[in-house]
């Protein structure tokens, strides 16, 4: 599988190219130095489901903290302090809350690493000449092609969207 890339000078030019090429039925991905909200609409990207992972982990963290507090203060190590109840929900609130927050944050962070395919040392894109501008001032579009013989058509369609340059990258690692 080859990946054809095209660079555009502005976000608007990229969004325009995405609209044109999507109508022609290509599988697309874009690379930008900052998030471009119109791009998600143009790519018809689904909403991120990351929040579910964070929510579930947060609930788990809070529940585990509450259960853990009950376990250590009412069951494993009960101390009678002036007759105060061993299982005392009000006193368990702060730690339950904090651990819920902590688990949510760790969950959201871990989820973004997985979903955004981070923690990689190398990607074929890094070998593409000029691709460094994707984190600078350039806006890149990627077309994923299946067959080598249709490459020529894609190149022609890409060239029609008036990019700064067209480049080619190897398949995903």
């Amino acid at each position, binding site marked *: 599988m080859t990946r054809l890339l095209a660079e555009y000078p502005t976000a608007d030019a990229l969004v325009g190219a995405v609209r044109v090429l999507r109508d022609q039925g290509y599988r697309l*991905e874009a690379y930008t130095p900052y*998030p471009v909200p119109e791009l998600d609409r143009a790519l018809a990207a689904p909403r991120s489901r990351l929040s579910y992972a964070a929510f579930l982990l947060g609930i788990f963290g809070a529940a585990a903290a509450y259960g853990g507090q009950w376990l250590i*203060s009412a069951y494993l190590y009960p101390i009678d302090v002036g007759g105060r109840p061993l299982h005392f929900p009000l*006193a368990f609130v702060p*730690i339950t809350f904090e651990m819920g927050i902590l688990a949510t*944050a760790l969950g959201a962070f871990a989820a973004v690493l997985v979903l*955004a395919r981070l923690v990689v040392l190398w990607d074929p894109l890094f070998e593409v000449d000029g691709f460094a501008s994707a984190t*600078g001032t350039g806006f890149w579009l990627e077309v994923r092609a299946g067959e080598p013989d249709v490459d020529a058509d894609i190149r022609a369609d890409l060239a029609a969207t008036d990019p700064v340059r067209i480049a080619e990258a190897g398949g995903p690692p």
Partner: protein
Amino acid sequence: MTPTAAADPILVGAPTPGELQDQLLATTWGQGGRGWRIAFAIAGALTLLLFGCIAYTVATGIGVWGNNVPVAWAFGIINFVWWIGIGHAGTFISAILYLLEQRWRTSINRFAEAMTLFAVIQAGLFPLLHLGRPWFAYWLFPYPSVMGVWPQVRSALPWDAAAITTYFTVSLLFWFLGLVPDLATLRDHAPTRRRRILYGLLALGWRGSATAWRHYRAAYLILAGIATPLVVSVHSIVSSDFAIGLTPGWHSTIFPPFFVAGAIYSGFAMVLTLVIPTRAAFRLKNVITVRHLELCACLLLVTGLLVAYGYTVEYFIAWYSGDEAERYQFFHGRPFGPGSFVFWAMLACNILTPQLFWSRRLRRNVRVLFVASILINVGMWAERFVIIVQSLQREYLPSGWRGYAPTWVDLSILAGTLGFFSLLFLTFLRLLPFVAVAEMKELRAELAHEDAAHRGPA
């Protein structure tokens, strides 16, 4: 937006994305200059003093501090509360102002988040040292020991441990997540191979794909959303260390909101103390504009008034309660007892200083802001001294009264944490872009877009 706000931009001039990026990255490539080196040398010397004094304290025992009975908390806890409070402005700027879509936060959020992290590091030192035997600090965390002993979670101190740990971790994740796209920019534009490798490793292989940005934005929003209640909870929990005690001057329901307001107040003061010299030294006055400083001053005025309200309510309740010890504490002990000058300094710094900011001219005067920000931080330190030392030295029984004086070790450790904080901060200024580059590019694009829309046919 009001007409004045439109006339007073959050980004001066119309730099191209390339110019903006070059300007913001230049702080990491360039030399620090003489001022930076002198500051770094002083901060380094004070850091050595800090670690020397910590070694001395740990090796000799907590008796080298001025703490006594009844004033058992003293400097250790004053400094802890002060530093943790300073951290709050960073989270306030990065989380609450993000959710409120306040665009002026963009140029100072990275900066303020770093301040938070480094302030929490200083704060964390104090409870550990105050334990007396810091090598047993892990006893604070629940772990299955052969002794079968567990932390007492019905006490406020384990709440504190949970809150501070969570606060530090979430602040670190939030800060690092915000940094990842900029680390990729550094990786792709670094002049030397060593830097490319360093930043490349830290950037985790960020490519900036639309998919990655979508998940990234979702994660950033979630972190902002949970950091908002977190920042309110942390100082509330710190305040319960006091509020659930029976000591006169502590046992008060106003404490959680009062502490949170005070924390954000001192934090914004510290933001100004740091940002004013930095924007001058690194020539970033077009990015961190007078408007940013003015808005910080407005927040100082608001939170300063909240703090003043807290003082008023404390006094009213002390009088209204009819409790003899409370009344003595507030109407004799604090204003006229030992260390009363700290009380008067607190009132002058915390209540009078922010009143300057009713004037627009003074809010925009950089020198006035800088001096005021330092006075406010002195005032907030004094407030914690008043709450802790003055309350403890005048408890219920006159036979138990005793004064307090810090030792040279106490003072050196306080100065040392200021040095260590500055050392971390100065290192950060040179190693990482302290204005968020990707976010500034996004802001610039938004502003350019709006500008074009204004000029075009309506």
